[in-house]
């Protein structure tokens, strides 16, 4: 096949330059399609990577015991908040904790209780965070380190000490090292004993946002709420990582027995945790990829319409070109190059927009989309082929025009 000559590309660029606004509207469908395609795939991949990173960080053998039908969400900034939101009405208790801890094969068990409380620091009222009651082993279990100070030392004591998440430290006190500062939780003074290093971001996860949380001792949280605090999660670490599944079963049967056979809790290993996080995500991804496919289809039809209008407007030009010796094929190529240029530029703009939104998401939310080169190249190929597919019919029509008829039209 004879390669396109530079004159055809030049004329395509010229035609493009001469109808900027119209071309923009034409490309919009392709832009929206490409942007949503890249973003959705990118977000989905990014979140999966983040969740995997979290698991690697925490250790892959941790078991999570949760009440059924419970949702704990960190903050309003955790985007796609419809998946999260605080809804603590669980059925785990401190008795469950001791049962889990005493199950054979369990090395240690850590409760996480959440309470809604008014929090006041030197930086004013803090609305984003929640107060988590837990035990000293929390940090060891999650391989979490502290940037300053120490984690809580004792389990039951009402020592009124608090360890704050990295983001909470900044929000509460407007300073990096608020050690020894006082924070009021439900008007009870707590002394800041340590500041945690940032946890890996956990977008769309059903866990709490630890970076914005305040950690007090489990005993403290029970005392403050007259033992009505909700334990929304118990983390358990098996002694032998290879025995994780057996331990999971053991905990399950033990809790089932004590709950009177009522299956109102779940014992999840990290794989299941990941699956529950990503299955909804996969569904949404498929859905939105479908929607962006429709956007691309509509964009392609838009390109086809504009090309049809364009060849009608430029019939005279086609006549001149044919009179000067352009073959049908050369006319076809010219208009095909034009429609392909249109959709390819749409695709490039779409990619740029996707990167901009990616940047915005990274700055303002904890989602870190992962836009890979493969996705970008795929998007380029898709948008280019849309131009070729939807441009061929108008280009064919243009090529079939009789020179004398085309020349006569004005």
């Amino acid at each position, binding site marked *: 096949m*004879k390669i396109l*000559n*530079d*004159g*055809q590309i*030049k*004329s395509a660029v*010229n*035609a493009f330059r*001469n109808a900027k606004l119209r071309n923009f509207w034409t490309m919009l469908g392709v832009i929206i399609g490409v942007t949503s395609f890249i973003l959705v795939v990118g977000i989905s991949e990014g979140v999966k990577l983040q969740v995997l990173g979290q698991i690697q960080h925490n250790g892959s053998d941790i078991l999570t015991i949760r009440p059924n039908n419970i949702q704990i969400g960190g903050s309003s900034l955790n985007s796609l908040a419809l998946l999260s939101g605080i809804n603590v009405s669980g059925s785990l208790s401190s008795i469950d904790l001791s049962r889990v801890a005493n199950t054979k094969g369990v090395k240690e068990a850590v409760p996480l209780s959440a309470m809604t409380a008014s929090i006041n620091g030197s930086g004013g009222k803090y609305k984003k965070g929640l107060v988590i009651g837990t035990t000293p082993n929390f940090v060891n279990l999650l391989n979490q380190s502290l940037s300053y100070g120490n984690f809580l030392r004792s389990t039951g004591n009402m020592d009124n000490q608090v360890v704050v998440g990295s983001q909470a430290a900044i929000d509460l006190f407007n300073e990096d090292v608020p050690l020894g500062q006082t924070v009021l939780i439900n008007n009870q003074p707590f002394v800041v004993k340590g500041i945690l290093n940032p946890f890996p971001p956990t977008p769309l996860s059903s866990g709490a946002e630890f970076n914005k949380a305040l950690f007090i001792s489990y005993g403290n949280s029970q005392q403050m709420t007259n033992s009505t605090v909700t334990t929304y999660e118990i983390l358990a670490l098996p002694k032998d990582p290879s025995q994780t599944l057996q331990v999971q079963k053991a905990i399950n049967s033990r809790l089932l027995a004590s709950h009177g056979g009522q299956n109102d809790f779940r014992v999840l290993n990290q794989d299941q945790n990941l699956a529950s996080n990503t299955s909804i995500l996969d569904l949404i991804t498929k859905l939105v990829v479908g929607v962006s496919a429709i956007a691309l289809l509509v964009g392609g039809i838009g390109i086809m319409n504009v090309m049809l209008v364009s060849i009608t407007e430029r019939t*005279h*030009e086609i006549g*001149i*070109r*044919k*009179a*000067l*010796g*352009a*073959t*049908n*094929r*050369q006319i076809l190529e010219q208009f095909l190059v034009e429609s392909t240029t249109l959709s390819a530029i749409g695709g490039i703009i779409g990619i740029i927009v996707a990167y901009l939104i990616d940047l915005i998401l990274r700055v303002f939310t904890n989602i870190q989309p992962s836009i890979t080169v493969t996705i970008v190249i795929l998007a380029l190929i898709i948008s280019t082929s849309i131009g070729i597919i939807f441009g061929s019919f108008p280009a064919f029509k243009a090529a079939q025009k*009789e*020179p*004398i008829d085309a*020349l006569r039209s004005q």
Partner: protein
Amino acid sequence: MALIKLDNVSKIYGFGDATTVALDEVSLVIDKGEFVAVMGPSGSGKSTLMNVIGLLDRPSQGRYVLENKSVSRLRSNQAAKIRRDSIGFIFQSFNLLTKLNVIDNVSLPLAYKGISQSKRYKMASNILDRVGIKSREYFYPSQLSGGQAQCVAIARALVNNPKIIIADEPTGNLDSAGSRLVMELLSEIHAMGNTVIFVTHNPELTRYASRVVYMHDGNIIHDENTAIGRVAPRARKVLYTLPVKSIDDDLAGVSALVKAIEPKASPKKKSKKKKRLARK
């Protein structure tokens, strides 16, 4: 040597009631190196003749031999290639592409031939120099006067070094100065050995031609060789004293018959019918 040979070529447009006969069994032989002026009133088939000779249009009937090759039934791409390589068109309304600058317009036929851009520009530049508007190379058609635009169109027609230049009323949109410029250019091209065929309404312009063909109602009614530099002696006479007696007059009786059969038919229809009957 006959370059162009038309043998009983007819061109009929439309069908049924709307049939128009644009060329009525025209036979014409044009030799290499002739400078032919085609004259005739509007609707006499001059432009159709040009389009058929220029392979923009296919004859409905008859044989057209171009350079000893029958071209009356070519496929569109073959016709395009002959147009590209052997024929240069000059139109009344210049037909430059408004979105391209002068040099791109001129080099367009070369682009369709597949010549590289630098070579194209060089050739186009040379030809623009020859027609005397090299200084306007990067102007756009809208920035040119009519005469200049037609010079660009001539340069474009010449750039492929075609054997035949076909000009359909090249001076129709130009003032007298522009007309002179264009005609001088055409005669220069002719002097270099090219065959030039042009259509004109202006008898004065026949002074450039070596041969004048007069057309009326799709027929060639007169064909004479003239001396270059002199207005064709019959130009005015033939144009302004057209044959009074036409074939339609002969059919007046038929016309009356038609009227009798179809009393309600519109006059326009009748005349068409008359014409059609005449062809039978």
